């Protein structure tokens, strides 16, 4: 049986999970400590219970503060739910791989750096930067040249060539913007 190529890994939502888990841990411990204090001493720890009870007693459900707090909770809840349900972005840009048991990908940052390096090679380019969007590689080059009419074509060809060499599964349309700046 031939082993199939491993799938390109996707994000694992570790940051969100760690933040939510730490907050839940803190909230759980805090609630437990307060509840035990209340059970044993009849009053909470470092909190003015009568004042809080009085405050809650005086505010009605339609208080703007209650509405605002509820709205914040609802939005956070909805956001977490979307984060959980929506598919995570792939962590790599997949490249065509002829070997059936192998998968190859390049990090998005790596992709834009190697494309920028390709643009940098063109005569007259002093600095190049590539931003990857959905299917586009927006290239910005800085040149000291006054007459740089030929630059966009040359840069575009070099970047397109580098993209073709890397052979990503989903290609990029190369766009070039030239900015003139004296060194």
């Amino acid at each position, binding site marked *: 049986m*031939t*082993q199939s*190529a*491993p799938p390109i*890994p*996707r994000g694992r*939502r*570790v940051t*969100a*999970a*760690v933040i*939510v*888990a730490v907050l*839940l*841990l803190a*909230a*759980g*411990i*805090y*609630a*437990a400590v307060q*509840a*035990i204090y209340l*059970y044993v001493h009849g009053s909470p720890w470092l909190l003015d219970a009568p004042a809080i009870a009085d405050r*809650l*007693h005086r*505010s*009605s*459900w*339609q*208080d703007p503060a*209650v*509405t605002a*707090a*509820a709205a914040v*909770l*609802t939005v956070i*809840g*909805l956001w*977490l*739910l*979307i*984060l*959980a349900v929506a598919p995570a972005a792939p962590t790599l840009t997949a490249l065509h*791989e002829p070997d059936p048991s*192998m998968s*190859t*990908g*390049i*990090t998005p*940052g*790596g*992709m834009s*750096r*190697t494309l*920028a*390096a390709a643009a940098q*090679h063109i005569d007259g380019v*002093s600095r190049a930067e590539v931003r990857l969007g959905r299917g586009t590689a927006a290239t910005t080059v800085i040149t000291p040249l006054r007459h740089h009419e030929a630059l966009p074509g040359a840069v575009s060809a070099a970047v397109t060539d580098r993209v073709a*060499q890397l052979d990503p599964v989903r290609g990029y349309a190369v766009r070039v913007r030239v900015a003139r700046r004296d060194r």
Partner: protein
Amino acid sequence: MMTNRTARGNRVGLAVTGLVLLIAGGYVLARSLGAFGSTQARQPVYTDAEAGWIRTTIWIWLAVAAVGVMIAILALRWLIVQLRTERLNRLIVDTDAGAVDVADVAVGRTDLPAGALSTAVGSEIQTYPGVRSVHAYLTGDPDQPQLNLNVTVDPDVDVPRVRRRIVDEAVAHARTALDTPDLATQLRLTVARPTRDHRNYI
């Protein structure tokens, strides 16, 4: 695989937390905006009846404490799971019955430390020109491992060429060593940041 388990766990954890917040917040919001009638909306959040009930029902605090401890334990477990690695420490390799150079041949299979293979593959790739650093490790099942190669290359290197060398030489050697021509392999390429003023001016 372990990582997939962690990823799935994170999704479930976030979804459950989000759902609880959404339901609780949504209920308060609806009541606050008068969805259950204006009489309910004008009522205090904490009524005298509720205060009286809590004063007489002392055990409620034990229940709250228990729920708090449970949430804390689950959250702690959730945090620890993030540290789980999918790294494989040993491999099972099918060996020929006639092989004489293998020490502990048991029913034609042998145990290998995974580190030996990944170190060998890593140091081989490290020698290729244009390669900055390599991180090689194995994941998956001991009898069906996956080779993972994280390779950082110089910004100006001929990436396709390095790729070809990795596949044709390092990966091919690993496959020969394990006698698995179809060893699942994941190559993850990164391009290093250009070092200061290493660019060629006109």
